[in-house]
């Protein structure tokens, strides 16, 4: 079994209200100078056939219309 981590993030240019909300909250907490915050998802898994992870991402873990994904084998 190969361990892998899949990072899924909103595509560039698509409004990300979660990221915006986090960004707006930062100054009130004393964190200045932080911008371009985007919130995505991380999926950890173990796979017998890691070569099929791309297909898994395309079909289920990400929606390629709105999200980019990155597969990291560990």
């Amino acid at each position: 079994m190969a361990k892998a981590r899949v990072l899924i993030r909103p595509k560039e240019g698509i409004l990300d209200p979660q990221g915006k909300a986090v960004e707006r909250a930062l100054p009130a907490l004393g964190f200045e100078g932080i911008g371009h915050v985007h919130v995505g998802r991380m999926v950890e898994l173990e796979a017998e056939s890691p070569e099929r992870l791309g297909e898994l991402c395309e079909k289920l873990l990400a929606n390629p219309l709105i999200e980019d994904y990155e597969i990291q084998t560990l």
Partner: protein
Amino acid sequence: MIWGVLQFPGSCDERDALHACTLASGEARLIWHEERDLGGVDGVVVPGGFSYGDYLRAGAIARFSPAMEAVAALAAAGGPVLGICNGFQVLCEAGLLPGALLLNESMRFVCRQVDLLGAGSSSPFLVGIEPGERLSIPAKHGEGRYYAPEETLDEIEGNGQVAFRYSPGQNPNGSVRDIAGVTNEAGNVLGLMPHPEHAVDPLTDSTDGLRIFEAMGRFAR
């Protein structure tokens, strides 16, 4: 005309959809998501709710239900399919409709009556609903912001696939171009975020939702 209304774990509007179909065209039955055979129904409603808890993305897991394969086959054969709210999300995830539904711009769940305007869709599904005609329908969702890339939007507008828009100033979720509902290119699959099945009885004021079920019934005949 016999309607089938899908039922997933986490669906919650299937009974109202069943009621609306029955009012509009006589007969409707529930179809459990594990059924591979739709039992000879003429059209299908994919109802609202939170199928599979909306895990991962709304509609992402429900699209792999056995019943959805049968729905895809019915759609390919030209049969009418209506997806409402979560059902719209499922149909987009399944690739039966263009675009995707994202988290509301406000990040809040919205629940309010909205005015929809007929968008002049060329779909045979919506014959009798005129361009600019106003329907008062409730919307209730957290992930209803319609999105598609610009070139897709131009294409679906050009094809007459935009079925409904939110009336100016009433867009509850930040949907691009105020789009509330779209059809596939053939026009026999319709998805919309607001809930026509909750607007079919004078008890809840507007009965405008019935217009959509009646139009679908006429199309199927």
